[in-house]
């Protein structure tokens, strides 16, 4: 008999409600949060449960995970410097590659400093927990990513939420902060990861300037996609000057793993000695760093991936809208389709997978305003033929669910 069965007062009792919800929604069938990819064949194809599947939900926006130059850079780095760094940069030292990557990111963003973190989650944790402390106030958009909430909590700063994408609401709440805005940081995202909607950054920049606060923009889902040079929504909205700190990730457009913070603040580098998520974790592995350097070089030297993802985004958004599906935001890299409830969203997700299309199921409490949806992400690597298959599968399933126009 399992020694953990029939324990009273189990550590896991706190998850009883979660367990019940999971049972109700999923039963014993396929678990959308634990899908096994038997084999990933390309930026847009995998084998799941013995079947070929088109990946339409992996944030591989520019399709660079299988870019030949990025793969070759990673292979060369493994051959030259091994598989891992086995420790933090504080203890084990920085590889030249780490510093080369930081120089490349700073140059890309035209900022004086860049700090690399081992994951995108840690980039938000590290910049926020490093910058902020007790006595500071951070104003966060209600729909900000969990990593932003967690970084703020770790910092000990006072956290004030404002209504999603509402600059007037931010203005009001910033005005109520006791002691003024000199030690206030506003945190927003360029593109919101769940719904795919874009922040009104120019409006936020105006409020920021009016109060004299700092502003940070997370460009995780916009790097390489928005802006003439791919620097994200702050570039496309022409307000980079108002942004004091940019945070982002290597795990989406750049096809690897890790994250960064960049700034022109003359004391930004102090975070290397003050940010625990930077100091107490192993540094990124050489192959990973080398592929990111190559990916940055690629997106700096050609706009072909950016052009292609926008073409695909417009086609997919247009065709899915034409089917009568309720899409949460205008065309962009993320296409979120609103469904009636969690059970319908799960059933729709499963039927799409049966048809060979992989998307993300997103249900409360992980979604804004308690909505249930399918979250899809467009890739520059999706071929015309794959897009046709995606649309055909959605048409079939929408018809089955009585959702087609």
């Amino acid at each position, binding site marked *: 008999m399992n020694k953990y069965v029939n324990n009273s007062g189990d550590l896991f009792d706190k998850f009883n409600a979660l367990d019940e919800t999971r049972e109700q929604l999923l039963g014993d069938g396929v678990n959308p949060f634990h899908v096994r990819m038997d084999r990933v064949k390309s930026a847009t194809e995998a084998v799941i449960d013995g079947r070929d599947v088109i990946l339409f939900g992996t944030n591989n926006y520019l399709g660079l995970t299988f870019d030949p130059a990025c793969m070759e850079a990673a292979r060369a780095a493994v051959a030259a410097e091994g598989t891992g760094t086995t420790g933090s940069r504080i203890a084990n030292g920085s590889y030249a590659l780490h510093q080369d990557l930081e120089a490349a990111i700073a140059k890309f963003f035209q900022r004086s400093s860049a700090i690399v973190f081992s994951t995108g989650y840690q980039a938000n944790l590290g910049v926020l927990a490093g910058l902020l402390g007790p006595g500071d*106030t951070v104003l966060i958009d209600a729909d900000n990513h969990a990593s932003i909430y967690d970084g703020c909590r770790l910092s000990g700063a*006072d956290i*004030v*939420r404002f*209504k999603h994408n509402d600059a007037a609401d931010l203005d009001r*709440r910033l005005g*109520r*902060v*006791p002691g003024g805005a000199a030690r206030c940081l506003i945190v927003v995202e360029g593109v919101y990861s769940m719904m795919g909607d874009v922040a009104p950054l120019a409006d936020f920049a105006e409020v920021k300037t009016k109060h004299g606060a700092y502003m940070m923009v997370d460009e995780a889902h916009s790097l390489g996609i928005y802006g003439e040079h791919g620097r994200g929504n702050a570039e496309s909205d022409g307000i980079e000057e108002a942004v004091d700190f940019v945070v982002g990730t290597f795990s989406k457009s750049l096809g690897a793993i890790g994250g960064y913070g960049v700034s022109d603040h003359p004391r930004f580098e102090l975070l290397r000695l003050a940010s625990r998520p930077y100091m107490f974790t192993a540094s990124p592995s050489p192959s990973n760093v080398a592929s990111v350097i190559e990916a940055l070089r690629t997106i700096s030297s050609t706009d072909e991936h950016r052009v292609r993802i926008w073409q695909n985004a417009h086609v997919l958004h247009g065709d899915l809208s034409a089917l009568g599906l309720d899409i949460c935001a205008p065309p962009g890299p993320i296409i979120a389709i609103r469904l009636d409830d969690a059970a319908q969203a799960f059933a729709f997700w499963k039927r799409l997978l049966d048809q060979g299309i992989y998307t993300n199921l997103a249900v409360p409490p992980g979604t804004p305003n*308690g909505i249930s949806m399918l979250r899809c992400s467009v890739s520059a690597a999706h071929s015309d033929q794959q897009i046709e298959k995606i649309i055909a599968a959605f048409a079939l399933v929408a018809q089955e669910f009585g959702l087609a126009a």
Partner: protein
Amino acid sequence: MTEAIIGDPTKVFEQIREQLVPYNKNGIELTEATDINADLNIDSVAILDLLMNIEDAYEISIPINLLADVRTVGDLSDIVRRMIDAQAEGGAP
């Protein structure tokens, strides 16, 4: 609104209770001892939205960090009262 309720614990509780009505799906009696999570089954995001509404009702700033100490409706009322008093005096809490 703020001036009317400073130093009046009953009024703050009454007004918080009104804010909670939309979340009281089972229509239970709301007292100071009502457990917000266990009795009302309000999820973590909804309670953050509720806090925003309370901030707007009183035109004060209530950092969400303070929710860590909130279990009951009475705890929430105490925090709101404390923040109203502190910010009416013009200083940080």
